[in-house]
């Protein structure tokens, strides 16, 4: 089933700004408020791994459903609140807050 293109920023302004601010290639990334994976898909191929935290279960379900097969070993979405989730110390090179802080 084809998903509708996301109406937000098809021009890619946000991802260009993100790349200008931080080097993500080969890095372990934590994305807080990952939603339906809208931003995650734009950089996931570059990173070593990404964990996306999202408290809304429906958004996480959509994110998983949209995960390309080639990225399933690299991307993980969790129904979780960053205020309460348990994560190992010193696990990530970068943390992204996209419209979620």
């Amino acid at each position, binding site marked *: 089933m084809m998903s509708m293109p996301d*109406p*937000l*920023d*098809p*021009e890619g*302004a*946000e991802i260009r*700004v*993100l790349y*200008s*601010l*931080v080097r993500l290639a080969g890095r372990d990334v*934590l994305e*807080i408020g990952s*939603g339906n994976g809208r931003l995650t898909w734009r950089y996931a191929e570059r990173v070593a791994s990404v964990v996306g935290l999202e408290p*809304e279960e429906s958004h996480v379900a959509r994110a998983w459903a949209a995960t390309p097969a080639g990225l399933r070993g690299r991307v993980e979405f969790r129904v979780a609140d*960053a*205020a309460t989730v348990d*994560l*190992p*110390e*010193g*696990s*990530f*090179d*970068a*943390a*992204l*807050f*996209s*419209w*979620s*802080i």
Partner: protein
Amino acid sequence: MHVLHRVHRWLRPGGRVVDIHPEPEAASVEIRSRATGRLTVVGPFDRPAIYDKIRAARDALAELVEAGLYVRERSVNFEVLYHFDSVDAWLAYRADRGSTAVVEPTLQARARELLTAAASGELLIREQLRATRYRRTRPAPRHRPEGSTAGGLH
């Protein structure tokens, strides 16, 4: 404890935080003709309920920088566009995301009117954003037993 205290522990030394959020100001609702490219401004979309949250988040970040947990390195201001074929599509998108700010009926009506009048028009929502990069610094002081003279972050 602000979530950034937790993020500080999860990051490796020298790790980066990138925060992207809207500026606390109205977005601009516009109609663009796909045929001619002509832009017509419908009006501002004001969301006062989120402005206080944004300012509070900025204050929290500033406190953590002041406390020495992070160093603010660089900020970039930029804009993004939402694209919709209709006002209803915009409203449905907002409902799907759980957005609660009300789109004033007069703004909706004006957008519908201008969209109908435009040659093959699309509805644009233009939003200003700020992206800031922070660098994680020294480990946060650990909690010390009562009676200790060393300070700690709370």
